[in-house]
């Protein structure tokens, strides 16, 4: 009941934020809302677009949830996504299996492995060398961009050697589309599976419990004699793997090729998505769906403005700032409450 009330309040707030941003940008509010709604939910095309964007940002959002619950700032989602895409493309180019379901699954696993490996490297740097994750993941993002930029003009370049991107995938290794006119593909279901799995792992397993304790109070975890480094490693590996899976969804679901600009900021977008989802897997699913809808719908705003996606960025920024302010006021009230007792 209380949970439902909070979700409802959050939704109303978000709609107010969107209205305020539209007002600030001097767009007609009710017309824009109906266009946004049409773009996001109008007919099979709209819904398919919403889900096709919502799936990957749900995964990068979950990646943020897992890491931050363990007290780790993984802002390397971009780099981990790029690595995932690169590993999947390398699997397609170098694994000697003829295109088919086996290769498709191999590529998905390669993408997860790539993201995991990259995140694991960052957490190794933190745990064993004390390099702050915020700094190392920023640096690793850049290294991934340039590495991928090199790979798609070198060993992984498409066979005609014209464009800086990988070869287009044949349909047999792409995720199946029930309706070839729309963007919906069955890979999106993997993000829903991941959401449930992360939820169970965080709240129903011993390891997940330990991770949550470490994130909220590392001292308690250490005093209990737990291996904090090991749990943080595991959280980062899962986090990176989720980003890798997001890359696979985009690569094998939509684009069919990989290039240096392939992540479309989705790695970063995971952060506002997770925060608005209150760092909870199910909440993140809701917020990913909402922001997916906003991105899908913002295309329709082109009647009024050439840059609809810009509005979504601003809405996200304002929503995050509001979230931060509310949380800070709440924390303060709690502190006051404690001192009054």
């Amino acid at each position, binding site marked *: 009941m209380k949970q439902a009330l909070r979700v409802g309040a959050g939704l109303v707030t978000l709609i107010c934020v969107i209205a305020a941003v539209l007002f600030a*940008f001097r767009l007609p509010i009710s017309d824009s809302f109906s266009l946004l709604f049409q773009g996001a939910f109008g007919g099979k095309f709209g819904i398919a677009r919403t889900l096709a964007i919502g799936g990957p940002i749900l995964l990068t959002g979950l990646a943020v949830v897992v890491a931050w619950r363990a007290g780790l*700032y993984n*802002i390397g989602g971009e780099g981990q996504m790029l690595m995932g895409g690169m590993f999947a493309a390398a699997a397609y180019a170098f694994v000697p299996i003829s295109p088919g379901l086996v290769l498709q699954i191999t590529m998905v696993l390669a993408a997860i492995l790539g993201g995991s490996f990259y995140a694991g490297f960052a957490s190794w*740097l933190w745990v064993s*060398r*004390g*390099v*702050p994750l*915020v*700094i*190392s993941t*920023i*640096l*690793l*993002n*850049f*290294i991934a961009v*340039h*590495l991928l*930029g*090199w790979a798609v*003009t*070198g060993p992984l370049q498409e066979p005609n050697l014209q464009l800086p991107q990988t070869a287009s995938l044949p349909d047999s290794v792409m995720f199946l589309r029930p309706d070839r006119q729309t963007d919906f593909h069955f890979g999106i279901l993997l993000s829903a599976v991941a959401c449930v799995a992360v939820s169970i792992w965080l709240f129903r397993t011993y390891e997940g419990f330990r991770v949550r304790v470490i994130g909220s109070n590392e001292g308690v975890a250490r005093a209990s004699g737990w291996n904090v480094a090991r749990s943080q490693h595991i959280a980062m590996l899962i986090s990176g793997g989720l980003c890798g899976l997001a890359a696979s969804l985009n690569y094998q679901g939509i684009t069919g090729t990989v290039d240096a600009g392939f992540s479309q900021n989705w790695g*970063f977008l995971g*952060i*506002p998505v997770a*925060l608005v989802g209150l760092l909870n897997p199910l909440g993140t699913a809701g917020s990913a769906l909402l922001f997916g809808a906003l991105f899908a719908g913002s295309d329709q705003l082109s009647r009024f*403005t*050439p*840059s609809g*996606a*810009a*509005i*979504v*960025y*601003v*809405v*996200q*920024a*304002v929503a*995050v*700032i509001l979230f*931060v*302010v509310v*949380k*800070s*006021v709440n*924390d303060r009230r709690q502190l006051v409450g404690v001192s009054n007792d």
Partner: protein
Amino acid sequence: MTDWIAVWLFSTPILCAAIGDVLVQRSGILNIGLEGQMLLGAFTAFAVSSATGNPWLGLLCGAGSGLLLALIVGKLVIDLLADQVVVGMAMIFLSLGVTAYLYQNQFGMIGSSVGAPVLPKLGGIDFVMAMSVLLVPAFGLLLYKTKWGLCLRACGEYPEAAESARVSVRKFRFVALAIGGILAGIAGAELSIGIAGSFSENMTQGRGYVAIAMVTFGRWKPQWVLASCLLIGWLESIQFLAQSQGWEIPFRLLLAMPYAAALLVLIIVGRGAAGPEVLGKPFRKNT
């Protein structure tokens, strides 16, 4: 032959932002939003310069926009004790959206890129280039030879001790953020009305993050930050030289070198890093 003026020019935006961020990080704040401050500065400077025809006014307004974002960050992370990484990310998205929207709506309809009057150059050197380099020894002296610098460093190392010595951590952090914001705005302005003479969406392309990384690479010391920024500028200028000469070297890998080198330094130095002790942690004053 290396064109040293070009190296200087390419490293200036990063140096200008990084040298300001040295003060910010020394005061204990990790401001990821630097990227957003630079981007907003770049757009504001471009818009004002193209509207008024006066690049100096553009530079001033660019600096002002960086300052404005810095003060918002300060209010949120210093007074409301908000998470610094979260607030920084919000600032980046805010500037990305606002600048893209305003640019597209005001200039995007024309189709071709719009020019703006650029800052005058004297022998290939403009005001921002000179200022950034001069700030290096100035900030070195400020940090290590003045009482103000000692207090600022104390805020980033041991804020409780600073407070007990009647140093207002809040005030010092706000001042550091303000200086960092002004310099980040100027750094962005240098990109749009110093180098390019135009603006494009997401023009900074991660240079704000690069500046933060170079502060780390330069071990939070102005002279080493200068050296690392020059290294980046040199690598960027080599890229253009190589393209014109048609050399067969994988330049994308070369571009990744500074980040790899920065990471390597961090790995080697490890926990012995001379970084500010409480970098990124909010400070709650006991009252």
